[in-house]
Each structure stands twice: as structure tokens, then as C-alpha cells.
């Protein structure tokens, strides 16, 4: 305390001159007209991308994770299941793509839950904005992450010998369908992210849903090899339908039923969970 005293007056004077600037800044803070909902959403999306830029470590889940998955499953199961690795890859890759991106959607709720704990939410909740743009923006940022993960997986697949009959258009359209589904599906996580008490509890709950849903599917093996009672469960698992749709589109032979089913499911998911999220958020 005593040793700091001699330097204090000088430093304080420095800030006192700043006070005039604070006053000037206050005088200049005129209110612009309110931005559109789209502009607000993109501002939130921009923030999400900035965070990726500043903390690139968090991209581990969209880069390392998919690479590990593709390599592991291709080489572990390839020989046994399809006779050859390259042959299995044609079947597996679209499925791995689906599994990885669906898994990554969990982080949406995780990030959201962490932010709530930190108080940054109090700021956005007291702003005169259309509040759901907070989530739309965050999910737009996440869509960028999903795109990154998809690119990594498809590139690796092409290197390993994935040659879909649908060519590039097939791969792009298949990925697009997956992104649409995941954007809508993520609203489940935003709702859970608001309800759960801690990021850890949320991760636990998410795993309980994601693991069975992605593994008990037709991603790794053809359901006809499974016991009879399991087959209908696997065939009607939404992830199986999604995987079949993506696989079909990439093979240049889009299965109408599955594609329509995925699109319908997306509409249902977003129209249920987006309002639920908004409701919980307003009531919080």
C-alpha cells in the first residue's frame, strides 16, 4: 500500500484526462436503426467463427476425430466385412461422414451451456435484439464446423480410394442434406444445453443418446446380418435413414423415400425444438 502511494497520483491524472474522452464517447453513442434478423444472426455466426480462429484447438473434434474414425474402421473392419479395404470404403465412408457430423453436433449444447455459466449470456439477453438469433447464429457457426469436418472426411476418403458414382455433385449434395439435417437436429442440443446444470452433465446425457443412435445403425454393417429382432430397430433408426440417403445421393442414385424422410424429420425437429429452446430461454 505505502510503496504504491508515490506513483498513484500520476497514474490517476492519466485516467482523469481519459474521463473527458469517456464523456465524449458517451455523447457520441447515438442509436442506429435496428438491424434485420438476418444481420443479427450473421453477427452471432461471425462471433462463433472468430472463436474458432482464436482457439483453433477446439477444431480437434472436426479434424482429428473424423480422421481417426475413417482410418480405424476402414482398416479394422474392411478386410473382414467386405473382403477388401477399398470395397468397404465405398460403403463405409458416407456412413462415417454421417456419424461424425451427427456426433459433433453435441458440442453445440456444450458450448452454449458453458457460455451460460460465464455471464456472457446476461449481456446478450439484455440487448434489444430478436433473442432466437443467438441460437441461429451459433448454429450457423456450427454449420461451418460441420462443413470443415465433412471436407476433411471426404478428402481423406478420396485419398484412400473412395470413388462414388455420383462424383463431385453427388458428394456435395449428400453433404448438403447432412448439413440441413444436423442444423435442425442441433436444436435438441440447444434446448438441453439450457436445461442441464453443467457442461459435464450435458456431455453425459448427450453420449447416452448419440452413441446408441449412431452405432445401432446401418453405418458399419448391412442390417441383414443382424438378428431378426434388431433389424427393424436399425432400419428405422433416423441415423440409418440419413446414412442410406447420403450414401444413395453420393452413389448417384438418390433414394426418394429416405431423402424425403430426412427432410421431413428436419422440419419436424426444428419446428419442435426451436420454439422449445426459445421458450426455455425466455423463462430462464
Amino acid at each position, binding site marked *: 500500500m505505502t510503496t504504491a502511494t508515490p506513483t*498513484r497520483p500520476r*497514474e*490517476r491524472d*492519466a*485516467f*482523469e484526462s*481519459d*474521463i473527458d*474522452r*469517456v*464523456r*465524449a*464517447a*458517451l*455523447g*457520441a*453513442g*447515438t*442509436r*442506429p*436503426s*435496428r*438491424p434485420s434478423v438476418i*444481420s*443479427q444472426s450473421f*453477427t452471432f455466426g*461471425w*462471433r462463433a467463427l*472468430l*472463436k474458432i480462429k*482464436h*482457439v483453433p484447438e477446439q477444431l480437434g473434434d472436426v479434424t482429428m476425430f473424423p480422421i481417426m474414425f475413417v482410418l480405424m474402421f476402414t482398416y479394422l473392419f474392411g478386410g473382414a466385412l467386405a473382403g477388401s479395404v477399398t470395397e468397404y470404403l465405398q460403403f463405409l465412408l458416407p456412413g462415417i461422414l454421417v456419424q461424425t457430423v451427427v456426433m459433433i453436433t453435441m458440442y453445440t449444447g456444450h458450448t452454449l451451456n458453458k457460455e451460460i455459466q*460465464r*455471464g*456472457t*449470456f*446476461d*449481456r*446478450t*439477453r*439484455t*440487448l*434489444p*435484439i430478436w433473442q432466437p438469433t443467438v441460437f441461429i447464429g451459433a448454429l450457423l457457426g456450427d454449420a461451418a464446423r460441420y462443413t470443415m469436418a465433412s471436407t476433411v472426411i471426404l478428402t481423406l476418403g478420396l485419398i484412400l480410394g473412395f470413388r462414388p458414382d455420383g462424383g463431385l455433385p453427388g458428394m456435395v449434395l449428400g453433404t448438403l442434406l447432412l448439413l440441413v439435417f444436423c442444423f435442425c437436429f442441433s436444436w435438441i442440443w440447444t434446448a438441453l444445453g439450457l436445461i442441464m446444470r453443467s457442461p459435464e452433465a450435458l456431455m453425459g446425457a448427450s453420449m447416452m443418446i448419440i452413441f446408441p443412435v449412431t452405432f445401432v445403425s446401418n453405418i458399419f454393417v448391412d442390417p441383414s446380418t443382424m438378428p431378426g429382432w434388431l433389424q427393424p430397430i436399425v432400419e428405422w433408426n433416423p441415423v440409418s435413414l440419413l446414412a442410406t440417403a447420403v450414401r444413395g445421393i453420393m452413389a448417384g442414385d438418390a433414394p426418394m423415400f429416405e431423402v424425403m424422410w430426412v427432410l421431413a424429420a428436419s422440419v419436424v425437429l426444428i419446428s419442435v425444438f426451436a420454439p422449445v429452446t426459445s421458450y426455455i430461454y425466455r*423463462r430462464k
Partner: protein
Amino acid sequence: MASELAVEATGVVKHFGDTKAIDGLDLAVAQGGVYGVLGPNGAGKTTAIRILTTLLRPDAGVARVLGHDVTKEPDAVRSRMSLTGQFSSVDDDLTGIENLVFLGRLFGYSNRDAKARALQLLDAFGLAEAGAKLVKHYSGGMRRRLDIASSIVVTPDLIFLDEPTTGLDPRSRNQVWDVVRALVAEGTTVILTTQYLEEADQLAGRIAVIDRGKVIAEGTPNDLKASVGSGALRVRVEQEDRREAAQATLERVLGEPVIVDADPASLSVRVADADRAALAVAELTREGIPIVNFSLAQPSLDEVFLALTGRPAETTEDAA
């Protein structure tokens, strides 16, 4: 417009489970100046602020901010006030400038204007050099200044500051006080919560004392202090055997019972104001009783509480 109240709360109640965090809160705050909300931890200050800033819905009662009902017209409330919460609301993973540009964009500034506004604010708050650094590397004082800057990207008519100086070193605290005064000078009404009587005294024109979710006293700082006296004068005499003489002198000048401390050279006495205390000390010197030192302690929040409630301030876990 100036005639409408900045805050008007009637019978506001908020429960958290079985605890009544706010129990029939009534407040009427006029526009202009600083209004202090004083109370110990857990008195319900933060809960009250969260209700007034649309973050929590009251279970009962009506709260209006600048004429708008906080539950029915939250958007109208949000467009005229801003909040600097007790916990940092700036984003650690972004730089200072990005934090402000982000808010500017949400308010509707163009990219260029948002950037210009961010630079202006950083400069005003002495953060120009730190602007490009990630906020997680900021000190507590810098973070608080950025937080306040974030609250005035668009100058609000009313700003809520929830314990703005808690946890800050004295220098940073003084800077925050300067900013509060600047806000008032520019016409923004400031509502600030604090645990320190001194802070409310320094800044606020009026003070509400909150206890157990209720306002238990309201008035100017002088009104409040009058209820407890301005504090205690403590004197330490050079020779222990002169203490009795000193005691007699102080009692004569101040007309209050003098408390004999455990320390054999020390005395303390309640005083109504600082002038009287100065007189008393001068009288000791005049009578040739040498003293080692003396101090005048501000009445603490505890003393105010004791005077108002007849029991010490309890600090319980703040419910929100």
C-alpha cells in the same frame, strides 16, 4: 419524459425454491444521478437487478423501467437500459475490439461504424493498446472497464451496475467511480448496488438499504448516516496513565460515552460528524495529552444495519 420514473417497483416477489429472495420490494427511482442499492451479500440486490433488467421474471408484483413493464415489454426496456453485471459479461475468447464490434453490429452499426465506435471506446477507457489482445489476458480492472464500455456502445438512458467495484484494487475502483460520474454528467441515470457504505456515500444521491429482499431504509446518504453517526473516533495516547484524562476530555467534548479498549493506551467513541471529532482531538492536544495517533472510521454497513434492524448484517449465500 424526464418526469417518468427510471425505476418503479411495487410489491415485487421472487422465490427460489423455498427461499424468498425478494419479498415485497418497493422502489421508486427518479431519473438523473446515481441511485445506490446497499445491502450485504444475499440481501437480494442481484436478484432485484436481474428482475429489473428482464433477466428474471418476478413471481408477483409490478416492475417498470422508464415506464415499461419488465415482463410485458422486455424489448422496450432492453432498448433503453443496459447492465454491467457482477460477473464479467465480456467474451474471454475474443479480443477487446471484437467484443465491442460484435455489440455494435447487433445494435445496427455498419461494419465500419462499429469498428470506429469500438476504437473510440477502447481509447476512452484506456484500453487502446490492449484492444487487439484476447480478453482472457486482461486484468480485473481492465475487464471491468471493457464491461462498462460494452454497456455504453449505444449510450443508454439508464445503466445498472451490479457491484461494479467488488474485487477491484483501489486504483481501479477510483477509475470506475470516475466513469460513474461521467455517466451522470452526460445524463445517464445510474443504479448501482454495493456492499460498501462508503461507495454509496461517494456516488449516490439517494440510497435504498435492502435486507432480506425488502427495502428497510431509503433516503440521502446524510439521512442514513444520521441514523448511525458518522462513525467512530479511535485515539491512542502516548502514556497509558493519561488515558483516564483523555477519556474525560473526549466525553466532555463529544457528549458520548467513551469505550475503553482492551489495548491499555487506546480509546474509542462514536461521533456524529467529522468536525466534532477534529475538535475533540484538538482539545486533547490543547490539554497537553500527547497522542500517538487517531483515526476516524466510517460507519460500516454492519453499523448501519445494526442501527436499522437491531441485528448485525447476515451474509448468506446469494441466491442468484
